[in-house]
């Protein structure tokens, strides 16, 4: 892989979010515009200043719109270079990656990156949209759903590393507690491990409070070249490393206990950002946490903890908001909500606000200079990683 050779510096200068809620009344276009407007305001730019737009949204079936990119283009991409990128659930972080190369390539100066998802209108339940993500010949006849296969992954992770449910539940406790400080959060709560272990079982070992809720929401970022950033802000946050990787489609033949594809994606981003020891060099992280075990799984894939060690570090408080490497200070998907693509971009925005020092009550205790956001998707096969510095 060739990285870090001739690209221009790329900065984030503004970000915006909508509330993350179930059953928002706004249309997908309106949600996307609300977030875009907030991001443009923070950046001090108008829509007419933007020259390219990148859109991210997970399956078209959620919004029930074919060519969803064309539909959402209306939220900012009128008479402009506008396109949609897609890597399943990992789309949220693919959007800033794509915005990065729009600017780094020299084709664009000021990019608006938008992610939107509206899950709640799906009937009878958003899970039913996932009925059609399988191989039409070999898997669809079994009618699996996502919680099924994630239960397998969680089981395998627990079995290989000898991890207990109690240790994993601590993630949910931490993230839902962090979300109490987040004004956009949908599922913030002060819970104990017992509350989580006593919630109803969906598919063993996944229980209801191990999972993130069904959400609607949008997120947006303004990403620009160095010249533009210097003109508009004294505190730009730089995107210094990007990486992504997709494993093959056949999840059934993969050992699920370790996300190898994430390791590849992380290595790509680390090499670009010049990071050799992620545990020492990264100050704050936002790993993707649609399920509580996923945060630990991803921390290991990011090589911030050794395989099987993440639960131990969690118990020691390393990942707490006042710990050595605060993880999901925004509250993550478990606390803030999970409008798929928007959730990934929300995580990137959380790191941006942390590095800029404008995270308000979410701001972590220690000074931070390097942050990382990550998302995960497809059939347990895709990961996207972005590293930022202030």
């Amino acid at each position, binding site marked *: 892989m060739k990285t870090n050779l001739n690209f221009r510096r790329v900065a984030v200068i503004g970000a915006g979010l909508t509330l993350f809620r179930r059953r928002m009344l706004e249309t997908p276009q309106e949600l996307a515009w609300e977030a875009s407007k907030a991001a443009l305001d923070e950046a001090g730019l108008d829509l007419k200043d933007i020259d390219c737009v990148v859109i991210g949204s997970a399956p078209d079936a959620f919004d029930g*719109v074919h060519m969803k990119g*064309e539909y959402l283009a209306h939220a900012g991409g009128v008479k402009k270079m506008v*396109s949609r*990128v897609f890597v399943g659930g990992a789309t949220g972080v693919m959007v800033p990656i794509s915005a990065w190369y729009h600017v780094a390539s020299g084709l664009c100066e000021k990019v608006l990156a938008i992610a939107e998802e509206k899950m709640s209108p799906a009937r009878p339940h958003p899970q039913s949209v996932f009925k059609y993500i399988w191989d039409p010949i070999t898997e669809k006849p079994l009618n699996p759903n996502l919680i099924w296969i994630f239960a397998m992954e969680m089981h395998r992770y627990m079995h290989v590393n000898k991890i207990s449910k109690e240790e994993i539940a601590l993630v949910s406790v931490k993230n839902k507690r962090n979300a109490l400080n987040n004004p956009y959060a949908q599922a913030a709560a002060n819970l104990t491990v017992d509350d989580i272990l006593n919630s109803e079982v969906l598919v063993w070992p996944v229980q209801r409070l191990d999972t993130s809720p069904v959400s609607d929401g949008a997120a947006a970022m303004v990403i620009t070249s160095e010249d533009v950033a210097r003109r508009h802000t004294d505190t730009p946050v730089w995107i210094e490393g*990007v990486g992504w*990787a*997709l494993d093959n489609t056949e999840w059934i033949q993969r050992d699920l206990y370790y996300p190898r594809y994430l390791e590849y994606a992380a290595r790509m981003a680390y090499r670009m950002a010049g990071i050799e020891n992620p545990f020492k060099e990264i100050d704050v992280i936002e790993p993707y946490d649609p399920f509580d075990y996923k945060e630990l799984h991803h921390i290991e894939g990011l090589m911030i903890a050794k395989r099987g060690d993440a639960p131990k570090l969690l118990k020691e408080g390393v990942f707490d908001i006042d710990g050595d490497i605060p993880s999901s200070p925004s509250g993550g998907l478990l606390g803030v909500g999970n409008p798929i693509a928007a959730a990934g971009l929300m995580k990137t925005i959380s790191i941006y606000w942390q590095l800029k020092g404008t995270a308000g009550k979410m701001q972590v205790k220690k000074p931070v200079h390097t942050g990382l956001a990550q998302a995960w998707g497809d059939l347990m096969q895709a990961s996207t990683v972005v590293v930022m510095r202030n």
Partner: protein
Amino acid sequence: MKIGIIGVGWYGFKPSIKDSSFREMMFEASTRAYEEANINPRTDVDTFISCQEDFWEGISISDEFAPDPIGGAMRPTMTVTGDGIQGIVHGIMHISSGLSNITTVEAHAKPSDILSLNHIIEFGHDPIYGRIGAKNCNFLAGLEAVKYMQKSKIEREDLAYVVAKNKELGLKNPRASFASKLSIDDVMNSEYVVYPLTELDISRYVDGAIVIVLASEEVARKYTDTPIWITGASFASDSTLELSELGEANYLKIASKKAYQMAKINPKQIKSAFIDDTYSYKELEHIEALGLSQNVKEDLREGQFYPGGKIPVNPLGGLLSVGRPLEASGLSLLLDAISYLRDGEENAIVGSWRGIPTFTGGVLVVSRK
């Protein structure tokens, strides 16, 4: 900017491919492209891009199926949900940002698997006030054609000229399933699908997969002595249906302005054009938008759009002859352009459109030098 095309591969281009799934078609096309480029995708290609839309595939998150057939598993593979030309522009950005030396762009279509194409297109309209339950999705093209013909003083007969030209020129193209020798009268006398378009004015759907291998200038020169260069590239959207200008291909105007600028070329220097002719009138509308002719009607009647004329437009038959492979339509035009350049033409412009109900298209300026 100069990005080299070092390999192309295609598979299919038949109204119905019965013996291969879309994944097998992708595999066949990419194998051929890698063979032509003489590279091993597992070691030489840095990033992979696939262009597809969930609803066309009938699979939610169809991106899951992208990596394996094109050699992109465990590598940076991503999907651009758009026309293949948009994928190419993303590939160009991967290369010029320094992220990659060699990038693969793939697009495919299997409309023969789709039972309810009209219904799927209906889902492309705004859910609140755009879905009118039209039985025939071509009605929008009819509306736009009338508007365009009024504005540019184009007559029904001119559209027939376009059809006869493209169907005849397609006879030279190995991919053209729908090429035939037709007279103007044949077209004029066939039945309307929606006024002013007959079934001969509307390109048919076709199954196909296309893979294009892009490389940076330095790397391209290592792999081949005769790469085709992309010197200008862009894409754009006008707006949604409600606010776009009917009868005016603003998307190509915006995109081509940028592409010409990048290529440091003006439309008069373009020697051949490969532009979307999903509907016969679209070819003329796009010629205008790209600034390739001052008087489209006159040039058309004088035969200036044939090879040997001022500027050959779709000299290998365009989509009217080859068929419309959904998201691979832009790449299908690019393939034609590449073979035309390999046969000796100096440069070409490729202009794509995403089809109803979008107002989105992409432009590439390709050249032998």
